[in-house]
């Protein structure tokens, strides 16, 4: 089959590889009909997540059709149209039972490798480095889905592929961002990053009763989308002082909830960016934390900072004094998609959330390198490019 493989930093190629096979009884094989790019892939492509190997198939946000099931698969059958959650959960460990699926004890074959860095192993993730299991990703014609009964969900007939594909990763991440931010009716919510994840967080914040959502980014087309599709007020951080602007917008108190939907490759203007870029380049700091710092500074006293933008290692200059003395709550995590899917289908059906506008560029696998360059450089008003391996 054809698959889009990582061959080194900013080097993707389509290769001919063997078709995947059932390796364990609870596996299923899914024929991929749509597979989206995600901001997390950029961290791999730009070389900020260690343990990638040349030849790894990337991609983790996808839908498809079940073509084969292992002997231990009970809820799925050939022909089912499914969305598969990007994190893999066994369904039986303490963490899966508590619906914290991305913390699964049992789904990461490289758990010991990861334990050396994070002390405890976390769940495997499709196409997301060997630290996270080394599972082959979804930018391919077929993919093997372990623990398929738990990770693959039948898509209701009245939900289109164009919406369903983002229920794999972007939508649940946004939902969990708002949930961890403890959004309550009447809250003012600030979201850094108007990408797919940030905008899903905005829509979900409204779904939880937020009074007002403020989007912060520098890309005008994304801010325009945030206003149009996600109902947000907007701040372009290149034009103005974000902290002042947020005070202004909140009657001088600061937002109740601050969501970091940017992560370790945050871009900033001025001297802070030079500082972070240099340290990251010298490997003195692995992640650039400009957004996290700003969110902690902006948050109102007693408020909550929620982190879904991905960090991999160490950051620098976190304002602990502000966190401590303002009595903030900080939460973060990879999302627990399996927990949210049925509810998300329901919210989508009632049009309370709508991810469809994220699909700006349907492309073929062969266009992989170009599509990722476009997504990385944010050209052509790209929100997300989505591969259709069979077109």
């Amino acid at each position, binding site marked *: *089959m054809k*698959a889009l*493989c990582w*061959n080194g930093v900013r080097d993707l*190629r389509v*290769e001919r*590889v*063997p*078709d*995947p*096979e059932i*390796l*364990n*009884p*609870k596996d299923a094989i899914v024929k991929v009909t749509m597979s989206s790019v995600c901001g997390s892939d950029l961290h791999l492509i730009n070389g900020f997540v260690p343990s990638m*190997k*040349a*030849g*790894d*198939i990337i991609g983790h946000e996808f839908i498809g059709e079940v073509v084969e099931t292992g002997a*231990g698969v009970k809820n799925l059958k050939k022909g089912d149209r499914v969305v598969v959650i990007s994190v*893999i959960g*066994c*369904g*039986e*460990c*303490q963490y899966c*039972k508590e619906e914290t699926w991305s913390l699964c*004890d*049992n*789904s*990461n*074959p490289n*758990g*010991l490798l990861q334990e050396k860095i994070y002390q405890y*192993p976390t769940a*495997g993730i499709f196409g997301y480095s060997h630290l996270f*299991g*080394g*599972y*082959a990703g979804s930018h*391919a014609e077929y993919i*093997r889905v*372990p*623990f398929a009964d738990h990770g693959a969900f039948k898509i209701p007939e009245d939900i289109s592929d164009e919406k369903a594909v983002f229920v794999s990763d972007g939508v649940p991440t946004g939902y969990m961002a708002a949930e961890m931010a403890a959004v309550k009716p009447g809250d003012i919510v600030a979201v850094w990053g108007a990408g797919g994840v940030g905008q899903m967080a905005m829509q979900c914040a409204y779904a939880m009763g937020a009074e007002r959502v403020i989007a912060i980014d520098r890309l005008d087309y994304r801010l325009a989308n945030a206003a149009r599709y996600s109902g947000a007020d907007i701040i372009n951080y290149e034009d103005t002082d974000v902290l002042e602007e947020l005070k202004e917008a909140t009657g001088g108190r600061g937002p109740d909830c601050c969501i970091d939907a940017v992560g370790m490759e945050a871009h900033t203007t001025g001297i802070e960016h030079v500082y972070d870029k240099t340290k990251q380049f010298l490997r003195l700091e692995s992640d650039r934390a400009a957004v996290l710092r700003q969110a902690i500074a902006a948050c109102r006293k007693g408020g909550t900072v929620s982190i879904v933008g991905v960090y991999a290692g160490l950051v620098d200059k976190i304002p602990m004094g502000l966190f401590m003395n303002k009595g903030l709550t900080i939460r973060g995590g990879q999302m627990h998609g399996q927990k949210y899917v049925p509810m998300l289908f329901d919210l989508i059906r009632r049009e309370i959330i709508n991810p469809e506008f994220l699909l700006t560029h349907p492309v073929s696998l062969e266009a992989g390198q170009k599509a990722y360059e476009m997504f990385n450089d944010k050209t052509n008003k790209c929100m997300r490019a989505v591969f259709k391996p069979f077109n």
Partner: protein
Amino acid sequence: MKTEHAIHSGKHQRKHKKEFINVNNAERLISLAAGGMLLAKHYKHPLANPIKVLTGAFLVYRGLSGNCPLYTGLDKNSNETNAINTRVIFTVNKPREEVYRYWRQLENLPFFMSHLQRVEQKNDVESEWIARIPGGVGIIKWNAEIVKEIPNELIGWQSIENSTINNAGKVEFYDAPRGQGTVLKVIFSYHPPAGALGEGVAKLFNPLFKTILKEDIRAFKQVIEAGEVATIKGQPSGRK
């Protein structure tokens, strides 16, 4: 690495040795295992790590022949040492009775202990163990007996005197707090060589041994909780 007192006495010292065998049996197995692994890991690019390959070859020789030229040279004998214990503690999300029952059925052990080929229970106490030596150097057999058993709480075993390799182990089972399954404490024990050289060699083995044990224990947890061991072996990639 954790070095503790032996969980068993000096019972493992063999009384009679042929003159040219100056490496004891547990040590022989570990030599073979460590050597085989080093070789398997580095044989593809021997020039990239000649020291490891040489060490590997040496350990395999030492394990197969039972003779260590270094010991002969130094006039050291490795049979009089304290045991080194490797400990792993972990929790599985299943009731204690179930976990105990699975473990006590020794035939189950090869499902998660990657180097065990087969365990056959001869009677209530005695069993025969067959293991693959890592790196594909061969197989090794020994007999063991259950020396202590408290149902749902503890199993202790030990290789039978004069069997091919000398080792011992113990698993304790406790209830995890808040009814969240069972805590297992696993201790494996073997004899390192004596003296400064022995310590060096033990330092080489111990992390390896601990890693194997941890991998096996993780696999045990996966088998008993999830019913299968997560793997990516055999999946496609663009690697040639």
